[in-house]
């Protein structure tokens, strides 16, 4: 190329410089506005609602709350249920991990599928399924009464039901993170223990589990967080006598006692923050790995002791039944004629009628459409924000970008109910922050809340992917004449594409399964799937119940496809950090 063409190209690229600057500042302004309007203003409003009345600080709300007997009991229920859940989930989860990664058990492949179901069968969908299968007219209850005619049909109820549901549905953190951690343990340490006389099981308890103790703590804290903020389980299964904190917040909000709702939401937020800080602390201390130069990959050991071998097999397969039953029955009965639902143990015949009636009636189709449209809206906007913020964070380290980064991670710590209460309190009247509009009761409030929920996850994963791209690739493109936009579109974007697809899919999965924020914020115009499923779940009418099963099956299928996609794209193999 002659010097003249170099010169010409240089001249041609000059005029768009001011345009680039403008685009950058416009993007930055949008981002800042979104952070202030949808994060700090709602948070500030919650704080002032909880502690200010008529211009002065008040502790009156605290006193009122402390005096309310139902609040005290909900607090107590929440705390002991969260504690009990951590214990039971650890028992179930550790056993699963042992069966899948440490001990040779027949049919481990099939067991793994069953143990993985909480990944696709979670939140309100799973609670609905449990209620359907174990509830007073459920298939399992039906079956049990044939053996024990005198039993109480309504056994799956109250705290027992909530604890059972928690114990088996919150093991997915163990399944994801603890398995990954155990796979990184050097098998030579197990062999060393055995050469010193330890049985395989005692090697597991004395060597392997202590090595992964930080991960066990971390997943326990994640379980604690989920249990503390549980809403669908107590709402659907808890009944009148067992209520938890999130229900209380929702109840207070609906009776317009928003100062008290705000205070309880803040309390939940404070607890979450403490748990989160604990997680960070554990993550920083997690230094057990990397001791050996040539670690031997984890291998499964055969239990030579017949008794313990038999025990492990029996428990493993009992767990299989527990995990598979609700999923199988939910899917099976979604194809059953409605007269068969709630009366038969197995469907009398299979039909597509339920699906046809759900997908053809405007009223039942709407929640599906609403959830999809609102999730896609939230994801599209957050994707743009995350790309912009990710680039900002990756390219420059200044106080300003530090503030942006920190702000975008705040929702990670916030309980969903606090996000919801914040939006309600801040925007229940025309506000200058959103140009004189009202959000409460509007369609937009749901996609906005959804966006807040997925921001931390998307920014974090996309930001990490951006940092992971070799900067010399962009340098290479630049040395070949590519300007910033060309570099972004031709080099960065194609390299990011798999991550963007994956992250969007995961966010979509989260949002179609979302229940808490939806339950607080929905209105007749934008009733989402989670709320619709929960509404159908408690119905006694087989026709309505059938629709709930169809929804649950559809959501499960979507989740399944997304999780498989994530696994294909390598998320399952990459070392996953807990926080």
């Amino acid at each position, binding site marked *: *190329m002659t010097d003249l063409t*170099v010169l010409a*190209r*240089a001249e041609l690229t000059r005029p768009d410089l001011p345009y680039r600057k403008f685009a950058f500042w416009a993007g930055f302004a949008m981002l800042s506005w979104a952070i202030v309007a949808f994060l700090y203003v709602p948070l500030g409003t919650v704080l002032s609602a909880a502690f200010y009345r008529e211009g002065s600080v008040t502790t009156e709300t605290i006193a009122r709350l402390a005096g309310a007997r139902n609040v005290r009991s909900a607090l107590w229920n929440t705390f002991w249920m969260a504690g009990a859940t951590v214990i039971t989930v650890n028992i179930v989860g550790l056993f699963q991990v042992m069966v899948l990664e440490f001990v040779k058990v027949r049919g481990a492949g099939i067991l793994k599928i069953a143990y993985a179901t909480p990944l696709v069968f979670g939140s309100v969908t799973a609670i609905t399924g449990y209620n359907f299968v174990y509830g007073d007219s459920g298939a399992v209850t039906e079956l049990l009464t044939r053996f024990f005619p005198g039993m109480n049909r309504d056994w799956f109820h109250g705290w027992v039901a909530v604890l059972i549901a928690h114990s088996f549905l919150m093991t997915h953190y163990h399944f994801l993170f603890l398995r990954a951690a155990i796979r990184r343990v050097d098998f030579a340490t197990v062999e060393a223990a055995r050469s010193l006389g330890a049985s395989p099981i005692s090697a597991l308890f004395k060597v392997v589990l202590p090595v992964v103790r930080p991960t066990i703590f971390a997943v326990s804290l994640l379980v604690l967080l989920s249990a503390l903020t549980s809403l669908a389980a107590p709402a659907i299964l808890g009944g009148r006598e067992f209520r938890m904190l999130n229900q209380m917040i929702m109840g207070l909000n609906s009776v317009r006692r928003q100062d008290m709702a705000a205070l309880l939401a803040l309390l939940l937020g404070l607890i979450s923050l403490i748990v989160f800080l604990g997680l960070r602390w554990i993550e920083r201390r997690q230094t057990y790995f990397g001791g050996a130069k040539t670690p031997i990959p984890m291998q499964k050991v055969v239990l030579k002791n017949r008794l313990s071998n038999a025990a492990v097999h029996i428990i493993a397969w009992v767990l299989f039944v527990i995990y598979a039953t609700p999923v199988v029955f939910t899917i099976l009965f979604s194809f059953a004629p409605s007269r068969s639902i709630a009366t038969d143990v197995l469907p009398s015949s299979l039909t597509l009628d339920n699906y046809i009636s759900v997908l053809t009636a405007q009223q039942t189709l709407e929640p599906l459409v609403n959830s999809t449209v609102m999730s896609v809206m939230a994801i599209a906007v957050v994707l743009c924000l995350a790309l912009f913020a990710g680039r900002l964070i990756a390219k420059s380290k200044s106080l300003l970008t530090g503030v942006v980064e920190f702000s975008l991670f705040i929702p990670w710590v916030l309980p969903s109910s606090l996000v919801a209460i914040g939006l309600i309190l801040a925007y229940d009247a025309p506000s200058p922050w959103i140009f004189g509009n009202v959000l409460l009761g509007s369609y937009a409030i749901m996609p906005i809340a959804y966006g807040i929920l997925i921001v931390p996850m998307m920014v974090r994963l996309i930001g990490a992917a951006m940092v992971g791209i070799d900067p010399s690739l962009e340098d*290479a*493109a630049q*040395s*070949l*004449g590519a300007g910033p936009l060309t570099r972004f579109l031709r080099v960065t974007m194609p390299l990011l594409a798999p991550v963007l697809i994956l992250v969007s899919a995961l966010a979509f999965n989260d949002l179609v399964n979302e229940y808490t924020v939806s339950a607080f914020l929905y209105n007749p115009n934008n009733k989402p799937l989670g709320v619709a499923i929960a509404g159908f779940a408690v119905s006694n009418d087989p026709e309505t119940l059938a629709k709930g099963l169809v929804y649950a099956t559809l959501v499960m299928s979507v989740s399944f496809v997304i999780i498989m996609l994530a696994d294909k794209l390598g998320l399952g193999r990459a070392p996953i950090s807990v926080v």
Partner: protein
Amino acid sequence: MIDLERISVSYGDTTVMHDLSLDVRESEFFTLLGPSGCGKTTLLRTISGFVTPSSGSVHISGRDVTALAPEDRGIGVVFQNYALFPHLTVFENVAFGLRVARTNRAEIASRVQDALDRIGVAEHAAKKPAELSGGQQQRVAIARALILGARVLLLDEPLSNLDAKLREAMRDEIRDIQQRMGLTAVYVTHDQHEALAISDRVAVMESGAVRQIGTPRELYASPTSAFVCSFIGDTSCLPPHPAFQPNGRAVRAFVRPEHVHLGVRDGDGWINLEPTLERMVYQGARTRLVLRAGDTRLTAEAPSDQPEHVNGDTVPVSIRLADVHLYPEAQP
């Protein structure tokens, strides 16, 4: 061809390069050599435009490019890890610059094909970079860097992730391409053997400054500083000796192993030492003798057919005074 004038580079408050001037001639293979952290890569990136100097100017072919963005400088760059775009095929990697320049389809096809043919990777055109060997990747990186017709090629330690055997072959190949196409090449390395083997001229750098510029022969035969003397080739430090300390001033004296001769030689211009043998290192045709004279260790090189010595023996050696490199004590 490439004129660097009084270049200073600072990051924040730290100045990593101060007032550096350098001149690379047309069609020259010019190497920046130095230990890691000496600023050689910073200097290369200043030429390519990825680093903006805080003061000073860069001229290429007489044109001031100091204020130009890298994409506007018309320079070919081969990166340390090649930086091949992993999502594009070999063909598309090489075609990238042409596509950005909106060259028409037919011309892209013929120019890329031509480049791939010339560099011997035509049969891999449809492969992704990950499917290529290290040597093939390097060829693609060079082809990509030169597709826009750049007359200047910058290479940042391109051989560092190849294994030892391939290194030498690829080194010769780079030299060959540069000569054949008459390119001006600026090459960064920390490997002195590589620098001596490939370069027309070498700039030895240390702490952000150029210590000496010269042909490989000049640098080896007459290093102007103790740093260059010990960085290039093997050297031994000599114990103090009245012959090279005429007025008693402290100096540092260095000598190359091949200039330490076995046996005593009398006469003007020679000094004799009587060190003891620490160990012998057999290297095939030649044998190295590691000797100890007082506090200093001295390496001599001799043909392997010399009589065997036993460790601990006194081995008299002689050194021609003209072969001793002397530097004042204070000089770095």
